[in-house]
């Protein structure tokens, strides 16, 4: 794990809390910051129509909003987080198929409404797999 993503104090708790609030459905949101340091999270609605216990979807207008918000804050959109209710914090094939390069993807496992592992991943250059990175408190 050569790479690492750092979280400002309170960020990890905010992601866990969101995962608990939406349990048994998946939560999702944006990570905003700079140079591998997450300074803000933006919880977003899960707009999937394929069953929110197993899927999340961020609509294009919300994507545009967080990208503009990052610019307004003079920061970058670093990536997104989502929860895996009653499943491990590991990316699925579906996550891989939908991933974009360079974004950080944080996953929190929520087991029986209790947050457990939190992990972070990035897409390999050839799109073949996710590579796990280290998640650290800043």
């Amino acid at each position, binding site marked *: 794990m050569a790479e690492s993503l750092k979280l400002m104090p309170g960020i990890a708790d905010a992601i866990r809390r969101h995962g608990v609030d939406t349990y048994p459905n998946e939560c*999702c949101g944006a990570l905003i910051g700079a140079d591998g340091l997450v300074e803000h999270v933006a919880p977003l609605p899960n707009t999937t129509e394929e069953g929110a216990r197993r*899927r999340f*979807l961020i609509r294009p207008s919300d*994507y*545009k909003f967080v990208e503009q918000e990052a610019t307004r804050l003079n920061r970058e959109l670093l990536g997104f987080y989502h929860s895996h209710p009653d499943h491990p914090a590991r*990316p*699925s094939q579906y996550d891989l198929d939908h991933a974009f*390069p*360079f974004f950080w993807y944080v996953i929190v496992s929520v087991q029986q409404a209790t947050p457990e592992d939190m992990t972070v991943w990035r897409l390999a250059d050839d799109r073949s797999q996710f590579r796990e990175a280290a998640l650290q408190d800043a």
Partner: protein
Amino acid sequence: MGPRKRSVGSGARGPRDKVKTMANKILIPTPLRPFTGKQDAVEVDGTTIGELLGNLTAQYAGLKPHLYNEQGKLRSFVNVYLNDEDIRYLEKEKTAVKPGDTISIIPSVAGGNEPESKN
């Protein structure tokens, strides 16, 4: 090599007749900007969305695998907007583009865990 064809028009050579095709602005989302030299918008020539995207990926080859799948089709999680309209509701990649139109590439951020295992 044959004689090079000049642009059509009155024959006068001025700044206005140097380009026959038109350039449109394409807005690039954050994760694809490393492939466009960190630019959040690039100017590309073309008369349809398909042509513009073809020219975009010819100019910035690193974008191609992230916009198109192995079959050469636009990936389902890549949304392309002509001004504020999703091209899926227009004529998809055959949608005509006019001078001044802005094209946006907007990711559908999606994911989830594995489907329910069968009992």
